[in-house]
């Protein structure tokens, strides 16, 4: 059939296509990040969860989701303080080694009872080596946990049935410990101690966590997980406190790109971003009044010295390098959200740990410290004839490369014969190098998994193995940590840990850099969001301001 057109219409037709494309656009509604009428909240979460199984999760971004689905024996309030969860109350024996938890009557989202048996089952599962849990070591204070999960070399693992957790009856759970652990209520609110639905697991095994199978005992239930895109949670009407849960829908987006997270809030498509680019804080304060939330956080950035080979097998060199680094500049100029320079290792505000530890030279001005550093290096045998050269390895993500340049500059300025070379690599390669001790000096960060100083200090115990990046091996330090483990008195325990931290600062296997703050963008009409040191904010506490 001949087409009755001429060249002119052909030309205009091609040009008109753009206009046609834009017509279809107006049909769809846009996502409203904090939709008050629909009671939904879209959340820019920092990364993609690799598992929603509480026994296999490892990241804070996974915790942000899982913690809205499950409730442990204890749980957290809006300030992230431990409060009774599935356990209404508990008793501790005279020797502090046996804890008895009395559970509330509650059910899974399918109506089956959620009771002490689910807890006992869950703890056996996470500690059983077949589960391949990476965080099971959290539960090592429980009797026999370590012998089941990671027995000493040359011995066979105990059976999970030997675990010191017993369901005495449906609503009574007894936990026996290896050593007193006054922080147990802190620990039990962590996701490693969440219950899992025994009846579902027995039917489908590891598939229990798929949206089609999963049952939860917490405020929200998983309805969809679209990899690397979205996770949708819906309110669970069978949650024991459901009448006080206001939001109906939660949508989590994995937002690896922190700029994009801020964009999502700026465009109104998210009501909460779990972090934002620190160097844009002024702009965000202006464009999003009332959204910016900055709070101290359980995070320390530090550099490890490789103590297994020169030059950092010499304490004088380590101390000199630690002291010449201008952490005040980094804290105030590289980070822009009020970060604190780290003159000690354990972040301020850690539970039950009023630290007075500081680097011995913390009060001296930088110029004086640099002179002292040069003196120490000369004492260690370095000088114009024996120049000090080493490489600083760092992660090439977020602010780390900029910090590295400052550090390099500070160290080169000690003396003309100090030369620092920068080696920026991707995270995975960096940590592989650190573990293999294939570095001189390398950056790293540590986010506390629970609010206790032990969770930081254990990093440098000799038994920690490859993750003890400096290769620090000091029997006195190890003994202090072991003593603190079995100490029953809170104040004395804190004292022992303080001694360990002071030892760490004197011997300087690491150079403490900066205490990182948590940064969030939160819609000002969300009530019940409280800044806290663990940066844990459960949606069940959120409300809607009119």
């Amino acid at each position: 059939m001949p087409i009755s057109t001429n060249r002119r219409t052909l030309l205009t037709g091609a040009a008109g296509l753009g206009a046609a494309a834009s017509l279809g656009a107006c049909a769809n509604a846009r996502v409203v990040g904090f939709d008050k009428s629909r009671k939904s909240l879209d959340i820019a979460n920092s990364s993609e969860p690799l598992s929603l199984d509480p026994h296999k999760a490892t990241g804070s971004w996974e915790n942000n989701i899982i913690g809205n689905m499950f409730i442990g024996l204890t749980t957290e309030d809006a300030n992230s303080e431990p409060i009774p969860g599935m356990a209404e109350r508990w008793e501790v024996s005279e020797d502090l080694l046996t804890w008895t938890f009395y559970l509330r009557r509650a059910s899974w989202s399918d109506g089956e009872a959620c009771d002490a048996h689910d807890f006992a089952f869950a703890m056996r599962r996470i500690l059983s080596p077949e589960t391949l849990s990476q965080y099971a070591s959290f539960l090592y204070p429980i009797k026999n946990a370590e012998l089941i999960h990671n027995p000493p070399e040359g011995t066979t693992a105990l059976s999970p049935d030997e675990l010191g957790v017993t369901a005495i009856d449906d609503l009574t759970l007894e936990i026996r410990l290896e050593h007193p652990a006054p922080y147990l209520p802190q620990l039990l609110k962590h996701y490693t101690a969440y219950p899992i639905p025994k009846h579902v697991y027995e039917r489908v095994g590891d598939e229990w966590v798929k949206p089609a199978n999963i049952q939860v005992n917490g405020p929200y239930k998983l309805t969809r997980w679209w990899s690397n895109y979205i996770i949708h949670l819906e309110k669970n009407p069978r949650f024991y406190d459901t009448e006080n849960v206001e939001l109906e829908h939660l949508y989590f987006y994995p937002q690896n790109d922190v700029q994009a997270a801020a964009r999502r809030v700026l465009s109104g498509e998210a009501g909460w971003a779990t972090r934002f680019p620190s160097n844009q804080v002024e702009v965000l304060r202006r464009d999003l009044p009332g959204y910016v939330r900055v709070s101290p956080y359980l995070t320390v950035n530090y550099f490890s010295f490789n103590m297994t080979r020169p030059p950092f097998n010499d304490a004088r060199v380590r101390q000199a390098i630690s002291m010449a680094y201008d952490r005040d500049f980094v804290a105030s100029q590289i980070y822009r959200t009020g970060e604190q320079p780290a003159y000690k290792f354990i972040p301020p505000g850690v539970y039950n740990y009023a630290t007075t530890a500081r680097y011995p030279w913390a009060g001296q001005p930088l110029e004086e410290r640099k002179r002292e550093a040069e003196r120490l290096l000369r004492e260690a045998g370095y000088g114009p004839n024996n120049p000090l050269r080493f490489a600083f390895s760092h992660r090439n993500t977020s602010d780390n490369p900029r910090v590295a340049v400052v550090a390099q500059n500070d160290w080169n300025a000690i003396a003309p014969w100090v030369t620092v070379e920068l080696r920026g690599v991707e995270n995975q390669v960096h940590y592989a190098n650190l573990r293999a001790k294939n570095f001189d000096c390398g950056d790293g960060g540590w986010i506390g998994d629970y609010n206790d100083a032990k969770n930081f200090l254990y990093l440098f115990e000799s038994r920690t193995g490859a993750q003890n990046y400096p290769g620090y091996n000091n029997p006195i330090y190890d003994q202090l940590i072991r003593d603190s483990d079995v100490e029953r008195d809170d104040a004395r325990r804190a004292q022992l840990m303080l001694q360990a931290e002071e030892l760490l600062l004197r011997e300087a296997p690491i150079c403490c850099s900066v205490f990182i703050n948590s940064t969030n963008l939160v819609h000002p009409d969300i009530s019940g969001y409280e800044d806290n040191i663990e940066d844990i904010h459960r949606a069940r506490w959120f409300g809607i301001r009119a």
Partner: protein
Amino acid sequence: MLALAVRRILVAIPTLLAIVAAAFLLMKAAPGGPFTLERQLPPEIEQRMQAKFGLDLPVGEQLARYIFGSDEGGGLIRGDFGPSMTYKDKNVIEIIAEGAPTSALLGLGAMALALLVGGGLGVMAALRQNKIQDYAVMALAIAGVCLPPLVVGPVMQLLFGVQLGWFPSQGLYRDEFGLAYLILPIVTLSLPLIAIVSRLMRASMIEAMRSNAIRTARAKGLPEAQVIWRHALPIAILPVVSYVGPALAGVMAGSFVIETVYQLPGIGKQFVYAAQQRDYTLVMGVVLIYSFLIILMNLAADLMYRVLDPRTRTA
């Protein structure tokens, strides 16, 4: 034609195997592994993890296990792409199946747009050769090739999404497919394609319009529109077809940049994250899909050629 298709598909099998082997070895050469993490695993657990995925075997055996499976089953030849090494609750097929519809939709949409707009512009430029429209189109084409989506994407988001508010700027409308949500990414993805298609189209159209066939058609007194549509276009479109085949495979296998900028759930993004996290099985899965698409699209382009160009039919 059928014989050709069958022959090409048979040749594709060793090609795919070679690609699998090459990709596998390259990936193994990268330092680090899926379990090199900030927090170290207890040795017992790490050993079990390595054993579960066969990472404790020599590389050659790992490859054999990946392709042919072990006694417990699995293996590519049985259609099993294996479990993901980083996602603990999902396997490779599930992850690719989640991402594929979005990537395919984006790729097909962008290519359709590129063919319509780029083709149209190319034809227009050819018919108005060395006039202002021609220069305008070619300037646009240069810009389209030179401006990477990494730049165009965020600019479009800011302009049309945030400032003007015409289009949503990211996602798909939560867990549903929203048409309006696909417009900006499709346009961004199609810009470089439009540029290339319009240049190809212009060049081949100019040549076609000078050919003897067209002179004959005009001599017959056919209307100009019919000369262009019926006679010039089928000749002129041949180079475009051979470009579109592999290019379509490329865009349908996902664009990391587009999917990241617009926060879309495609396999391009999965691929890059998987490579960063050393999720060997997931990387292999995407490589396989991509190679398969390339082979398929090349075959499709060859078959199209035969339909469009009578000269190739006898060969």
